[in-house]
């Protein structure tokens, strides 16, 4: 009888300890979640406060009883925000489109075609992956300037259309497709180009989609190169627009309107993320950087 009592007691303390451990874990995870989410909450909240109410706060207010959308109006009329948006959209789509052509062709050559010096060339490509952007930016700036491409879309797009890492990812994926398919296509007299676009790409679509999404994120957030290459507002991307607005626009006195602009700029990527959560996280863990 006593033994049974001991047993239940031991089991109970073990269970209690387990519950305590779980609670602490959940508490700490929630704490970090709060730290991650709070800036987003504050951004949306501030964008809904009227500028007068925001500026006259004696201490920060954590919610607003009278949300207003007037800041969103100011954000779009005070600066050419919709222009920045269109620019970023054009820049992103064009970069992704040109990049796809470049990397798909290169990946196909490396994975399916035989040519002299293939391995040496591929090693050379991989070595180039280690070159940081900062090292080549000076000359690229001079090159683009001498081609009179400052304040043009081509100037923005051209230096960022090759990504060796994505060539590598695609090549790996292309190589997983069985040789038999290629041989069968060759017997049928299908050209390489046709085989690539009608057989290989549809099979490898998941990788292509991952690459596209990662590149979209990269383009949407790019700041440094666009800043170097554009000084006319007509060619600003959202990042540059936000920075300009903060330093010379209404951002200095009208924080709520600035936050409205920030919400508008951040929203597309967050929506994209919620739609393609799995793909993005998988893609980043295979080949993301930043961190």
């Amino acid at each position, binding site marked *: 009888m006593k033994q049974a009592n001991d047993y239940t007691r031991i089991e109970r303390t073990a269970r209690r300890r387990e519950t305590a451990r779980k609670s602490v*874990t959940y508490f*700490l995870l929630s704490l970090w*979640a709060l*730290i*991650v*989410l709070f*800036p987003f909450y*504050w*951004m949306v909240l*501030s964008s809904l406060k009227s500028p007068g109410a925001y*500026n006259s706060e*004696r*201490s*920060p207010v954590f919610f607003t009883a009278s949300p207003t959308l007037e800041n969103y109006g100011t954000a779009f009329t005070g600066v050419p925000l919709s222009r920045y948006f269109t620019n970023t959209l054009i820049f992103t789509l064009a970069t992704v489109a040109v990049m796809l052509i*470049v*990397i798909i*062709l*290169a990946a196909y*050559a*490396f994975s399916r*075609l*035989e*040519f*002299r010096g*293939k391995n040496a060339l591929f090693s050379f490509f991989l070595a*180039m992956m280690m*070159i*940081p952007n*900062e*090292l*080549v*930016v*000076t*000359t*690229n*700036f*001079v090159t683009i300037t001498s081609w009179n491409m400052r304040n043009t879309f081509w100037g923005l797009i*051209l*230096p960022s*259309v090759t990504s060796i890492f994505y060539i590598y990812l695609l090549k790996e994926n292309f190589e997983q497709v069985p040789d038999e398919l290629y041989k069968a296509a060759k017997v049928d007299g299908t050209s390489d180009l046709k085989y690539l676009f009608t057989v290989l790409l549809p099979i490898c679509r998941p990788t292509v989609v991952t690459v596209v999404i990662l590149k979209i994120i990269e383009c949407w*957030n790019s*700041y440094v190169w666009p800043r*170097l290459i554009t000084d006319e507002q007509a060619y600003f991307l959202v*990042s540059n627009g*936000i920075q300009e607005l*903060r*330093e010379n626009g209404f*951002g200095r006195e009208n924080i709520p309107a600035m*936050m409205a602009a*920030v919400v508008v*700029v*951040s929203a597309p990527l967050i929506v*994209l*993320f919620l739609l393609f959560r799995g793909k993005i*996280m998988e893609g*980043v*863990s295979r080949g993301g*950087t*930043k*961190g």
Partner: protein
Amino acid sequence: MDYGNNRKAWLYLLPALAFLLVFMVYPLVDVCIYAVEERFNFASQTYTGIGLYNFSYVLHDPFFLQAVKNTFILVLITVPLSTGLALLISVGLSSIERLQRLYQTVFFLPYVTNTLAVGLVFMILFKPTEYSPGLVNTLLAAFGVSPVDFIEGPYWAKMLVMCLYTVWVVMPFKILILTSALASVNRDYYNAARVDGSSKWRIFTRITLPMISPTVFYLIITGFIGAFKAYSDEVAIFGTNLNESGMNTIVGYVYDMLYGNSGGYPSFASAAALILFMIVFTVTVINLTVSRTSD
């Protein structure tokens, strides 16, 4: 070998090769040339001689030294802090079942946000408004801390904001990578250890850590490289004139030399970029050596 196939392959590679040659290989050679051309004049494209003057100028420039100091402080604080914190969070994350996906999604959010945009949110969290000392100062006041101007105030306060924002930005990547590393540890090891009656802490230090140590080293190496290249996060919080606020980084110095109010000196920019590359290269080699000897 089939000659036609040979030519076709080069045709397929042509676009990638052309872009690579123009925007990577040629610049690599060119940056070294710029760096040794003394007193290069952008307008007339002339220079007075070949030598190491540019390097000596950069290394004696107080703005550069400030940038180096800032970058090193940032690296030395944020890399260990974010890696350790990410490890803690990932272990917690992989020990729970319910809500795991939700937490994962939330933790990943900073990765997909525009750093410039969210940096502004961080700025207003720390910045005083017209009649209030700002949110963070108000919270700190509850603990009896007197208000500090985190954006335009003392150096350590600005550095603190910079480090906090950097950690916030780099965490998603680290958590993601560590969580998948933890998930790939073979369950059998844990079960065996549990049968032996090992404590949780012992299981963690003797099984989990050794199993994921290659991932941790990978994160430390990429973390160092990333932090050494910090720039746009600083712009987001302190504005483009980083020299004035004393918060410039090495990359920021390179861009300032190239363009902007203090710009027009590609030679100095190139020399600074090469110095940065050498620092990053050295640190990476040291990291790799350490990770190899500890295996």
